[in-house]
Each structure stands twice: as C-alpha cells, then as structure tokens.
C-alpha cells in the first residue's frame, strides 16, 4: 500500500503548480476568467507545451499517462489555482475519442480545440433523456435539438455532439460555428455556450457510442472531484490563515470554540472526500468504475457546499467581496456540483446500484 504520488506524477504536479503560481495568480485569473474569451489563450498554449494534455491519455494513443491518478494529479493542481482553462472539455473529448481510431495529436498539442456537448435543458445529467436527434442526409448527417451549458464551446474549433439516432446514442462532429450559439461567462469564471441545432450538418464520429460517452463522462467526473479537492485545500488554507490573523474581542477569531469545531469538521470532511476521489481514481479501469465515480461525486458535492458556505461564514464580510480570493473559491466549489451530475443525481446512481445488487 502506498498513497504517495509516483516520482513522475510528483514532477508533473510540481511543474504545473510552479507554472500556475508564476503565471496565474488570482488577480490574473479573475481578469481573464470573467471576460470573453473567459480564459487566457497564451497560457493555454503554454499549458499544452507543459504536457498536461498528454498526461490525460495513455502512451498507445500518443500521451504519457492516462491513468486515474494522472488525471487526479493534473486537475488537483488546476483546482488549487482556480484555473479556468478549458482542460475539462479537452479531457472529455480525448476520452470519448479513445473509442475511435482518431488521431489525437492535434488535440494533445493544444492546437485544435474541441468541446463535448451532452446536456440539454431538460436532460442536464441523464443520457437516457437526451432528445437531440441525428438524421441521415445524403452521405452525411444533420442534428436538431438544443445543448445547454457546453463548457469551452465558445473557443472550440469543433464540437462533438451527443445525439440520438432512434434508440442509439451517437457521437457527431460539427464545426465550432456551424450552429447558432449563445456564448456567456459563468458565475464562477470560465465560459460556456448554448447550442441551437437546427438540421445542422454533422459527421458521424462514433455510432452506438453510449458506453464510450459514459466512460468519458466518468473521466470528467473524476477530474471535477480532483479539481474540487485542490480547490478545497486552497480554500481551507486561506480560511485557517485568516482565522489565525483576524482578531476580534482582543483575540484571534480562531480561538473561539464555536469556530474551531466547525473548522475541524470541515477538514475532516475534506479528507473523506479526498479518500473517495483517490478510490475512484484507482477504479477507473474496473467494471464498477461508474459506481465509485458516483460515490465520489456525491461526497464531493456535499463537501464542496460545506466548505464554500462555512469558509465564507467563518471569515465574515471579507469573504463576501470580489477582491478577496475566498469568494471565488466558494463560487467555483459550489458550481462544480452542477457539472456532470449533482450530489442528488449521483446519490440516485449509488442507490440504484445498491437496489440492483
């Protein structure tokens, strides 16, 4: 048993952490995260050069990692720095394309950017409820339907769309500007779009893609859990520093037991959430991958809410301000829950697995 990172992953984490600390301080992050294009194209290119995209894919597909712990390592660092670069869309697309023969190098090098469009207004999380349809048209296909809150679509060269052809879900590719798109910034930073597909021409990338899509989404969920762990660590450290420094009634607020117990509870819950994320990372190639991912994402959802709300409350007014970084961590931690299945949705998956056993 060994819970330490391997040397390779430690080196990756160190160089990524150093890069983000040097080039992505919170002031810079807030400047780019809330204004179009909602990320920093230069930093994106540099991150790709650092090899963080290669780390998400195994060697046989041109990467140098691709295991659960590689994904964990990259996203934990991104989360700690609250980095809004669209790495998650890249991960989702890379993992979905692993089921195809596609050449991944243009994506891995950061030159060609993709987004994955899955969720819909009435089907934010559940593949079974997807209504976007694919229809044959001559040699190609057309897509009709609406995709909502597609992360990274506003800067994507191409978009992979999940659509229904009868009972089967397929994966189709459209050009980034092929469909009507409304781009917007997100309340927690970064950008997304809604897509209005109306007989939009598309190429079929993978028919009967459901298993591949489910697997790709689970990789995305693992990434979000790891991002949350990194962000929670940072939010906790900030809070504890503040509790030591801030004095009221002539003593540090950290000396009040009313806060001490809650700080300890928070730290305990973060460790619990980290443990389940580690477990999920270890189970990514197992048959019960999905159940472990859902357990982790449920606990992460519960814990991020606790950390976001309690860290703001225990720091008081200052944490309500834009200028103080804790507020931005609180927003990101809160909204992570709404990506790729919230705590309740994942609880239902865990319940269903229990009931079926």
């Amino acid at each position, binding site marked *: 048993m060994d819970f330490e990172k391997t040397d390779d992953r430690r080196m990756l984490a160190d160089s990524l952490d150093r890069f983000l600390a040097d080039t992505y301080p919170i002031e810079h992050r807030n400047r780019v995260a809330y204004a179009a294009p909602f990320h920093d194209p230069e930093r994106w290119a540099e991150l790709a050069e650092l090899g963080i995209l290669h780390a998400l894919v195994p060697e046989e597909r041109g990467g140098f990692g691709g295991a659960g712990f590689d994904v964990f390592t990259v996203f934990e660092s991104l989360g700690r720095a609250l980095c809004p670069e669209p790495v998650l869309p890249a991960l989702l697309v890379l993992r979905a394309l692993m089921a195809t023969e596609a050449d991944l190098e243009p994506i891995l090098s950061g030159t060609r950017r993709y987004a994955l469009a899955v969720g819909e*207004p*009435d089907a934010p999380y559940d593949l079974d409820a997807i209504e976007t349809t694919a229809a044959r048209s001559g040699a190609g296909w057309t897509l009709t339907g609406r995709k909502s809150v597609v992360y990274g679509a506003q800067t994507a060269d191409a978009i992979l769309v999940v659509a229904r052809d009868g009972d089967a879900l397929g994966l189709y590719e459209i050009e980034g500007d092929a469909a009507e798109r409304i781009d917007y910034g997100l309340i927690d930073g970064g950008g997304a779009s809604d897509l209005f597909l109306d007989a939009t021409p598309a190429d079929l990338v993978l028919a009967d893609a459901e298993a591949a899509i489910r697997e790709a989404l689970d990789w995305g969920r693992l990434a979000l859990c790891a991002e949350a762990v990194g962000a929670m660590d940072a939010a906790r450290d900030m809070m504890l520093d503040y509790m030591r420094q801030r004095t009221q009634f002539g003593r540090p607020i950290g000396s009040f037991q009313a806060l001490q117990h809650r700080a300890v509870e928070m730290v305990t819950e973060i460790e619990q959430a980290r443990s389940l994320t580690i477990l999920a990372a270890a189970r990514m190639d197992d048959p019960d991958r999905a159940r472990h991912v859902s357990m982790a994402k449920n606990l992460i959802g519960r814990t991020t809410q606790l950390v976001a709300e309690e860290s703001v409350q225990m720091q008081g007014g200052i944490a309500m301000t*834009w200028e103080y970084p804790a507020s931005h961590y609180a*927003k990101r931690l809160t909204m992570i829950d709404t990506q790729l299945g919230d705590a309740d949705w994942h609880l239902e998956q865990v319940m269903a697995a229990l009931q079926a056993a």
Partner: protein
Amino acid sequence: MDLSFSPEEEAFRAEVRQFLAEELPEDIARRNREGRELEKADMDRWHAILNARGWLAVTWPEEYGGTGWTPVQRHIFEEECARASAPRTLSFGLAMLGPVLIKFGTEAQKAELLPRILDGRDWWCQGYSEPGAGSDLAGLKTRAERDGDDYVINGQKTWTTLGQHANRIFCLVRTDPDAKKQAGISFVLADLDTPGIEMRPIRLIEGGHEVNEVFFTDARVPVANRVGEENQGWTIAKYLLTHERTNIAGVGFSIQAFENLCALSRKSRRNGRRMIDDPLFAARLARIEIDLEAMKITNLRMLSDATKNGQPGPESSMLKVKGTVIRQALNDLSRRALGPAAAPFPSEDLEGNAALVDPDQAANAARYFNNRKISIYGGSNEIQKNILAKTMLGL
C-alpha cells in the same frame, strides 16, 4: 389557544392586498421578483407611493407620521408585500434611525429629520462597522474630537450598504479614547458631502455594487448632529440593533420563495420527469416546508409576546438565526432546481434573452451567493448564538 387572525386583522389583510394590487408598479414588482437590484429611482418611487398612503414607517407611532401598527399588523403587511413581490423598504432611515430619533433625539432633531425620511429627501446609510470592528463593534476606532461647536472626525467605516445612493450617514464614533470600550462612543449624523468624507465602492462576491467604504479625514460635523448624550452612543447602538432584528426572520420572504420554488419545480423537467417528481428533490423541498411551517408559528408566538410586552425579547435572535438559515436553504434549493442552467453569469447581454434563461431565474445563483450575507450582517449568527446563550439560557 387560537391560531386564527381576528376579523379586524383579516379585514386589514384584505385592505393591504387590495392596495398592493392597485398601487404596486408592475415593473418594480417584476425587477424584484427577478432578483435584480433596484435602481434608486425605483426605491424612491415605491417609498413615495407608500408614504402617500401613510404606510411607509411601519414601526413609528402615528404622531410622527408612522402607522402605529401592532406587531401583528406589521407581520400581515410584510407577508402581503412579499406575496406581491413588493421590495422591502429601506431599513436605514425607517427601521433604524427613525426609532432612534424618536427615543433619543431632541425635539428639533425629530421635527427636522423624521419628515425628511418619510418624503425621501434623506437617504441614510449606516456607519457602524469598521475594518477592525465587525463582530466586536465596540472595538471601533473612528475618532471624533471636539473643536468648538464641531467634531473633527478621522477614521474609516466599511460595508456601508447602498451608501452610493445616500446623502447622509449615521455613525458610531469614539469621543473618549480613554474610557472603557463601550463607554467612549457617541452617535453622530453626518452629511456625506462634508469635505473630508470620501466613499469608495466594494464589489461583492456575485459582482454587484451594494456596499462601500467611507473614509473620514478631518471631516467637521456640528456637535448639534449628535443624537443622545456624549459617550452614550452604545446604548443607542444596542437599541437600534434590537430594532434591526425585529421581523428579521423574513418569514414573508421565505413563504414567497417557497411558493416560487414549488412552481418552478412543477414546471421544469429533469431527466424525463418533473423536478417535483424527483424523490430526492421532493424530499429536500418537503423538509424545508416543514421547517418553514414551524417558523411561521414560532414567529407568530413571538409577535404575540411582543404585543403583550411591548418589546421583542432576546428570543428575536433565535428567529434571526433560524430565519436566515431557512432563507439560505431556499436559495440553495432554488439554485439546485436549475442545475447547470444556474451557471451563466447574469449580464446585460443575457437579460431579456429568454431563449436562454427564464428571466425570473437569471439571477438565481447570484442571489444564492449574495444571500450568504444574511447570516453575517446585523450581528453574525455566531454572535446571535452567543447572545442567546447568555441572555436566554443564562449560560
């Protein structure tokens, strides 16, 4: 035991409801329902409508232009206003300074200032908190030194809500630096255009401009602007805080928020069914309904006590804590009901873009984040619990 309102109270409710149906401007109600910030002009307009009817100052006695209502009438009024999506009136002049002047002000101060609050000539803001004095308000350092007929004020206030719209500020200042903490404080009124007073905006978590910092550099304020005796400001501060805490549970708000949430969850579909048919979501909703139903009655019990004893007891802190927790839970659930669609940053571009978001919901997540403030300001929930432990439980 009788939980029903009297026929007179029911008649009063009907009168309020009719008034709101006739007089509340639709655009103001809509903005408020959508959770967007109201412009100063909107607040002024709504105040003027209430004032014309004599219903603006609900906590003041009639002789000063108030309604003279009982606590139960005030409660009914608040409930009906929430139901109609009427904005809350501004507390700084009406609920805070007004009662202070009525109790501690000179006749000249009352005669001059109370009418100006009612007719909107004065927009007050509250200068209590400082960077170093939040929960520990008595630790405030802003210094007022006597110089002839003036105080010369130096220091900084912060978190000044809607100060950008205000023309005047009421402040707690230190007039005797050698006295014990609470003993050296005075309550003074200042015009914000006094030379030496400067205001700067603070941007909040969700991006809005609602609070400010106020800097005092050798600002001269007439001694005549002091309310109450010199160095007796703490008594006033405490009196004002109890008033701030009445009706703070926001039961009316919560009832309305709950009904909106039920409507939303019947309308919106998720994963092949209505939100309300999702058992986990329905469980969350039902749990809040239970808490809210209980709080309604707790609130009425306290109102009934306050009517008998003429004063809210320390239990009002209990309601503040529970009330804020419930309101925040409602905001949380409402954000959850939207799922990923809560994520877009509310912006001018998206406003009116009904293809993308239901206008009622556009500010949903922003409201959730903004309302984290309600368990922090007006005495944080931790401080309220400290007070309760001491005064109610005698611990």
